[in-house]
């Protein structure tokens, strides 16, 4: 095919591209078999050098046949690679880049609660009255209680436990706020930090980890990270949001528990409660736990409703933990999911991303404002700029 490079815009007046379409130079060609040999050798070499990483990624998939077959494929490859030391260059490279390297086949065998130095929760019955669950009183460095309520039995959405009043922050002594969670936080964390800092009495920071949650600490160990953040940043208030990646199987005592089975619900509730305890170990610290908003996919939305029940139930048993329901905030005109929600001015506003899960910038602002309003009910922010 002839090359064509002459700019045509002098002819037409429009700067359209004239993409080159060269003829293949046969002298530079090689036989397809040789290409296959070189490509296959390259792939095999890459797999051998990268086998630990491939096994790690396979083991971090949701529990099920896909994970099992992937692990079954990569385990012997990784063993062979490690036996002859082919994994070492990758290891050295990761270390040189300052990356943490974990056990490639780690499947959260070690309890995340054990790693964080906080004892596991007990299982008392929560005292529920009129839809409001009265909080059990926790003490410093002492495990608070955790309910055995299964997700289906938890019926306290939006319940509120009364926080201990905190000292009013001032511009000279601002409230340190940490906004932490999974990919949902990616889409509102920065906005919330910005809005919070504009009050003049909050010094906020945010961090998130994509694809993370509480079911798979082998992917990302949030309890360990929360302990680090509490120790290093010592925030006065914390906003946590998890759940979007948590409707998957988890391991309990070496056994895989199906999502939303009784075993699963008990373990997941304990993990949620444990996270709440890690944050509120300090008696001056308060926690806002953000519920999942309404989702487009009905099946996914149903799972998020079940998770929200767990969050609400766990929050209700703890002082200084407030669960914030977000479903009503993002309901469409017909009460179900919609990207376009009517705002106060009566205008349809695009509050969600096209994936039907995450929040748009405007949706992030709405959620941030709701959370700051909730924070304002827990802490006196009246000396801020907005007062």
């Amino acid at each position, binding site marked *: *095919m002839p090359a064509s490079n002459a*700019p*045509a*815009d002098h002819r*037409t*007046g*429009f*700067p*359209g*591209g004239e*993409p*080159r*379409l060269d003829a*293949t*130079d*046969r002298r*530079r*060609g*090689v*036989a*397809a078999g*040789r*290409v*296959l*040999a*070189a*490509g*296959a*050798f*390259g*792939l*095999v*070499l*890459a797999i051998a050098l*990268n086998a630990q*990483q*491939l096994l790690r*990624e396979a083991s971090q998939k949701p529990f099920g046949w896909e994970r099992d077959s992937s692990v079954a494929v990569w385990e012997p490859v990784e063993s062979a690679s490690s036996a002859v030391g082919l994994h070492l*260059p990758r290891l050295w*490279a*990761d270390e040189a*880049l300052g990356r943490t390297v974990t056990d490639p086949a780690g499947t959260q065998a070690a309890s995340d609660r054990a790693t964080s130095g906080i004892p596991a929760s007990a299982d008392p019955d929560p005292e529920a009255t009129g839809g409001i669950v009265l909080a059990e009183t926790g003490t410093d460095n002492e495990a608070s209680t955790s309910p055995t309520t299964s997700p289906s039995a938890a019926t306290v959405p939006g319940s509120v436990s009364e926080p201990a009043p905190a000292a009013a922050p001032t511009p000279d002594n601002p409230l340190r706020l940490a906004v932490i969670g999974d990919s949902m936080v*990616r*889409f509102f964390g*920065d*906005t919330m*930090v*910005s809005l919070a800092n504009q009050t003049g009495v909050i010094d906020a920071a945010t961090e998130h980890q994509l*694809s993370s949650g509480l079911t798979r600490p082998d992917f990302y160990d949030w309890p360990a990270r929360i302990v680090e953040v509490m120790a290093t940043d010592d925030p006065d208030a914390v906003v946590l949001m998890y759940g979007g990646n948590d409707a998957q199987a988890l391991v309990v005592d070496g056994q895989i528990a199906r999502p939303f089975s009784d075993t699963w619900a008990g373990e997941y509730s304990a993990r949620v409660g444990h996270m709440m305890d890690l944050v509120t170990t300090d008696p001056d610290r308060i926690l806002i736990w953000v519920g999942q908003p309404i989702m*487009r996919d009905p099946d996914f939305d149903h799972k998020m409703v079940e998770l929200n029940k767990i969050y609400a139930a766990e929050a209700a048993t703890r002082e200084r933990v407030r669960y914030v329901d977000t479903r009503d905030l993002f309901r469409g*005109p017909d009460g179900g999911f*919609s990207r*376009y929600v009517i705002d106060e001015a009566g*205008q*349809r506003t695009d509050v969600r991303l*096209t994936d*039907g899960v995450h929040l*748009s*910038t*405007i949706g992030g602002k709405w959620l941030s404002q709701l959370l700051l309003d909730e924070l304002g009910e827990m802490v006196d922010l009246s000396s801020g700029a907005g007062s």
Partner: protein
Amino acid sequence: MLFPTFVFGAFFSVVFVVNWLTRPHPALWKPLMLAASIVFYGWWSWRFVFLLLATIVMNWVVGHYAVMSSDRRRRWWIRAGVAANLGILGVFKYWDFFAVEMSNLLESFGISGALPVLEYTLPVGISFYTFQAMSYIIDIGRGHIREMAPLDFAVYLSFFPQLVAGPIVRAAEMAPQLAARPDPRFVPAAEAFGLILNGLFKKVVISSFLASEIVDGVFADPSAHSGLEVALAVYAYAVQIYADFSGYTDIAIGVALLLGFRFPQNFDNPYRALTLQDFWRRWHMTLSRWLRDYLYVPLGGNRRGRANTYRNLMLVMLLGGLWHGSTWNFVIWGGIHGVVLAVERLLREHRERTGMSPLLPSGIGETVRWLVTFHVVCLAWVFFRSESLSAAMEMLGALANFENYAGTATPLVIAVTFGALAFQFMPSDWFEQLRDGFGSLGWVSQGAVVGLSLVAIDVLGPTGVAPFIYFQF
């Protein structure tokens, strides 16, 4: 199925072998290639495979009846076909935008009764394959190409290397290649591997690094960053979107080469352009060519007086912006390009009419022109990247921040951003030299280079790979 994944590597290994084994037998090769493309596309969502197949059938039928018809009826068929393609795009891509804007407009006049929104998920690659389909039926109507056999057309429109993000290949470019029997003894492997590795590096390492280290954070909350960081984030986004999109194109072209097909180039160092006109000869070339041949020229191009020429230029760039997505930001992005292209044309015409010589010496003049062009492109990128008009304005306003340094302008971010821009000015034969060097190696050494490069890219890139930016268009 994303290119930079092991799943695609395994998929392509099988397709490569099947391709060269069956290529001498078109009756076998074509259904197998169509099946491979459907598997590739269905990996995202099997539901949209039916939309793709419906588009194939509809456009082939339109093309067929257009060929069989008289001139007058042929025009009718072509118009109906274009309208149907635009209708598909309209339903999936533009209706909600129109319904929301119209409802809000009516509401502001106190008229309630909102138009329904559909909230359909946007099928991946719909803008690319409907544009290819329209080019086919329009070229048939113009008599520029002959009708393709149904299976040939299906393979062309669904061909997986270019299905989801281009390049926008024309039937006139693919039909001869589908008819030809490429010789399996002459596969341009060095060029193909070079393009694939280069594309992977640009996408997995450069694009992902800049997105996570500065672009996403600053665009999410510009007011929390200093003006210098905001400016750096805009430059970094210019590099990110180029690395992302041209990286995809490089991989697509390389993959097609390994299967015996050659696609048109789509990028030619766009950030070395000295004018916006030059930029559009170098950026997404197959789209600008499409807009010129199927929109600008039919509108009258530059043949109906100066006023109409400027109107057409503006209209095409506005619609080019809207092609990317149904938001005002994309319209403004196209508008900025349209206005500046018009101003450039006006100045050029004035200079030619008056015989005015350049105001600045050539070296300084070129530097100034480059700076102006690059910053106009960057200004437009702010609207392209921002989620809303107010977010874009906030971003531009934050350029004046003299406080709030958030520490994102690290030496590595600065080096990668400006290094990638400087790379656009490298002599254009560097790739040929590398390719020839690679081609002179034995197959074991070539395999070793490929393997080590893949590992290096994986080590340098983040965990997991974000979808390509242009998948959303």
